[in-house]
């Protein structure tokens, strides 16, 4: 690319905006319009906004790097259009084609403007290509990201459903952890436990890890932090269901559980919790 050659693209975008817009919308109507998903006027509106912001962003002369601040408005617009179109049912290819279909239109106008100057034309076509390719690819990234976000949100909802915090008695809640714990999951469970403690006004929380096959340092640390946080809030935690292997791992890892109350199983933890909250269980007088 010729370094000190100032691109004519910003100028063309400025002076020929109307022509470019109508040529582009025509092109879209004949090739990649999806009348079943979007009306013509919506398409014209999106194209118009795109061109407007493209023109503005390009005025700085930087056509190579779309991560700079001057391109952020256009990128935000593309993100919006991408998300809207995704919801409407457009495929990521169709979305990218929206941007790529502008190339032909722009190249045609560059040819008209620069005519005989072959070197300049080649350079300009390259710049335009690089720019529109980045923008088209950007829409694909956005599409992917929003799909990932949806999947993550669904995963989170599943997680919350699968680790319910149960209210065992007045002032006592329990969370039975099941399955392998990873850092992210443990964090979510712990945050929801603390919130439930507040919601139910519980002063004792039992964390039962009978169903957890493996505990590594990270998980152990999360558990300890949760116990500490609950204590700061005014609630005590009891960890129950520590299997022999886990007890060994914990000592080998050097994790310090000395000021955490632990009980062999949920039932003894519950008995202790009742005691701590001032309840006594007695057998009814008349038993049939």
């Amino acid at each position, binding site marked *: 690319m010729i370094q000190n050659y100032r691109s004519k693209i910003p100028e063309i975008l400025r002076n020929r905006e109307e022509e470019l817009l109508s040529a582009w919308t025509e092109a879209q109507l004949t090739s990649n319009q999806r009348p079943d998903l979007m009306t013509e006027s919506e398409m014209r509106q999106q194209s118009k906004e795109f061109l407007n912001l493209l023109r503005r962003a390009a005025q700085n002369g930087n056509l190579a790097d779309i*991560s700079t*601040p001057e391109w*952020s408005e256009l*990128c*935000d617009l593309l*993100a919006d259009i991408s998300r809207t179109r995704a919801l409407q049912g457009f495929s990521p290819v169709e979305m990218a084609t929206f941007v790529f279909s502008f190339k032909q239109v722009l190249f045609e106008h560059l040819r008209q403007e620069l005519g005989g100057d072959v070197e300049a034309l080649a350079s300009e076509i390259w710049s335009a290509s690089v720019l529109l390719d980045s923008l088209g690819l950007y829409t694909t*990234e*956005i599409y992917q*990201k929003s799909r990932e976000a949806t999947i993550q949100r669904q995963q989170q909802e599943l997680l919350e459903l699968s680790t319910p915090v149960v209210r065992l008695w007045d002032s006592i809640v329990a969370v039975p952890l099941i399955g392998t714990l990873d850092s992210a999951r443990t964090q979510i469970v712990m*945050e929801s436990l603390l919130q439930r403690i507040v919601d139910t006004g519980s002063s004792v929380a039992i964390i039962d890890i009978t169903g957890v096959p493996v505990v590594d340092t990270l998980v152990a640390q999360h558990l300890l932090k949760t116990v500490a946080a609950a204590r700061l809030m005014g609630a005590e935690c009891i960890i129950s269901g520590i299997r022999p292997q886990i007890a060994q791992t914990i000592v080998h890892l050097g994790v310090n559980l000395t000021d955490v109350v632990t009980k062999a199983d949920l039932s003894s933890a519950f008995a202790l919790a009742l005691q701590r909250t001032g309840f006594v269980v007695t057998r009814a007088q008349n038993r049939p």
Partner: protein
Amino acid sequence: MISQRRETLSILSAEDVVRVRQKVREWAVALGFSLVEQTKLVTAASELARNTFAYGGGGAVQLEIVGNTLHLGLRLTFEDRGPGIADVELALKDGYSTGGGLGMGLGGSRRLVNEFEIESRMGEGTRVTITKWK
């Protein structure tokens, strides 16, 4: 909605420390950070703003949105022209303090954010930059 990507607040009084907390909270909410992540960031900002005011003789903080739509973050840069920190490593250790109490909160603040950079020169000043990614 935040219109600019950058803003500077001066930290010259205790009220300014409060103002910094409120502004950081506002930006963190607008960027969509979770409640816990907001709380961590605002708390770190509070610690550092307080240091700037109490030990640095006053200074300023710059809030900046970094990254792009795919990967958004909030960067805070605290700067003062104070006496500087003699031993940064020591200051980062929990419990270290010249002013009595729990220490300058530097080590703790580092744990609350994703990126933490500190530059300090004796007699010239200190700059602490923290970043939290969404």
